[in-house]
């Protein structure tokens, strides 16, 4: 049994899926983030001045890019895997000798690729508004991949438990988006009162965004090492939990 062929098949199918519907998957983030850069970065940002030594436009670019990576890696896996469940074509995979780790890797890879592709689109648009020289390419790429992995896995778990299309929009709308906005995309936690600074440190997205910001412009509110340990730790825990769910057949088998 050649698992590489099975993995390639799932990844190719996933990539073809979001490319085929690019007006729904790749175009909206380009438009939305262009508006963020124009309104917050340019029109309002010019009046704010600098944050952490960087212009406000430069300061928000990393957060906006990573926020797009987070939402699109999550959205890709949750909608694709839930549709597969809903149409019952998950049975094609369950009947075949594809091991659970290949199924998980295939769907998560699809999420990571879409997340990073959207991140690239947003980064290219940001070039119109800001001229950023990358501070540390290794940190930038590795935290982006790790973040996309964590949220692809989270999307997968959401899809496993979802019983309706409503269930796949609750977490993005009521948890993911608020945590992203409160994760320091548009501000530094130093700007907050002490109590809210402490509360913010409980938000894992804050660490991811700041590590990514450090990679791009060299500015961060948190220790980058902690950000890597936390994101890597989340990845491992979510991988193990996802494999456990697949092994038990939760949500996909009787």
């Amino acid at each position: 049994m050649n698992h590489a062929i099975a993995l390639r098949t799932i990844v190719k199918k996933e990539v073809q899926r979001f490319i085929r519907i690019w007006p729904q998957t790749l175009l909206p983030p380009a438009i939305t983030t262009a508006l963020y850069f124009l309104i917050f970065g340019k029109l309002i940002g010019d009046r704010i001045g600098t944050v952490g030594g960087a212009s406000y436009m430069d300061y928000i670019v990393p957060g906006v890019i990573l926020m797009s990576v987070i939402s699109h890696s999550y959205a890709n896996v949750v909608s694709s895997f839930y549709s597969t469940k809903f149409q019952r074509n998950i049975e094609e995979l369950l009947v075949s000798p594809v091991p659970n780790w290949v199924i998980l890797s295939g769907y998560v890879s699809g999420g990571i690729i879409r997340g990073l592709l959207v991140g690239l689109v947003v980064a290219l648009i940001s070039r119109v508004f800001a001229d950023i020289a990358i501070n540390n390419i290794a940190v930038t790429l590795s935290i982006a991949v790790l973040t996309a992995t964590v949220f692809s896995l989270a999307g997968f778990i959401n899809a496993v438990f979802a019983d309706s299309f409503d269930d796949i929009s609750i977490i993005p709308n009521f948890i993911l988006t608020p945590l992203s906005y409160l994760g320091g995309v548009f501000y530094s936690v130093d700007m907050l009162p002490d109590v809210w600074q402490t509360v913010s440190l409980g938000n894992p997205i804050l660490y991811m965004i700041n590590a990514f910001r450090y990679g791009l412009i060299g500015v961060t509110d948190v220790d980058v090492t902690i950000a890597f340990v936390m994101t890597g730790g989340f990845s491992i825990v979510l991988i193990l939990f996802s494999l456990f769910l697949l092994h038990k057949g939760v949500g996909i088998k009787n």
Partner: protein
Amino acid sequence: MKALSIRNLKKIYNNGFVALKGIDLDVEAGDFFALLGPNGAGKSTTIGIISSLVNATSGSVSIFGHDLRHDRARAKSCIGLVPQEVNFNQFETVKNILLNQAGYYGTPRKIALQRTEQCLKQMDLWDKRDMVSRRLSGGMKRRVMIARALVHAPKLLILDEPTAGVDIEIRRSMWKMMQEVNRQGTTIILTTHYLEEAESLCRNIAIINHGLIVENSDMASLLARLNIDYFVLDLAEPIDAVPVIEGYQIERVSDKVLNVGVPKEYGLNTLFKLLTERNIKVISLKNRTNRLEQLFMDLIDQESDESLQ
């Protein structure tokens, strides 16, 4: 060589429903095997467990000698499943559905392309290969599922009501396709509610009811057990009264139509002779029910009576 060997298979669902009470079943390699039973008898659960869509509570399943629990990948590689309901991605093209399925089984791209062409031609779908599958007719969708199940050249093909809801012409053409697949060496397990289908295609049969196998034998022996055949006779002239002939069960349907139960030891010649003596002329006759259907109903009724007692 056994294509399928099931031992003491039990399934209790989370809601407490006992779907299988410990069944044993063997299917020989090369067989065309019918697994029959009324709705809710345990057929779909059995097939679900064999094809890894349902987790068994206990018992063992072995496919061509590979235990489904301990040698899972090899066991699964032997199986092709055609489910009851359409379950492929309706936004994919027909060709991609087969290519993806071949990929899941680790088939290299070049071979997958050859097998896809071969299976689509065999199912008379090659000219639809680039069509998005949701645009296909119901009969074509069924054939796509058969082609998909065959693309990795399985040794055991499981057909779960493959002809449900298709018209008689398509059903007959699908029978020919299934017979051809079996002739090429693939073992087939068929579940169906069309007992005529099972009688025409299958050599061996198991009947499942209330989670237990109530009959398991070859089709010929099973049919031989039926010692009475039922016929509908069309008469040339209307009759006033139902003729009484010893040994035969005769019922009047209308003035010119009779239902007759003919015991095998008496036969039809004697019946015609006795009807002719009574000036009753028969212009045509047909089987009132499918023979297997009669046996099936007898077995299911008997089982229900026993469970009531």
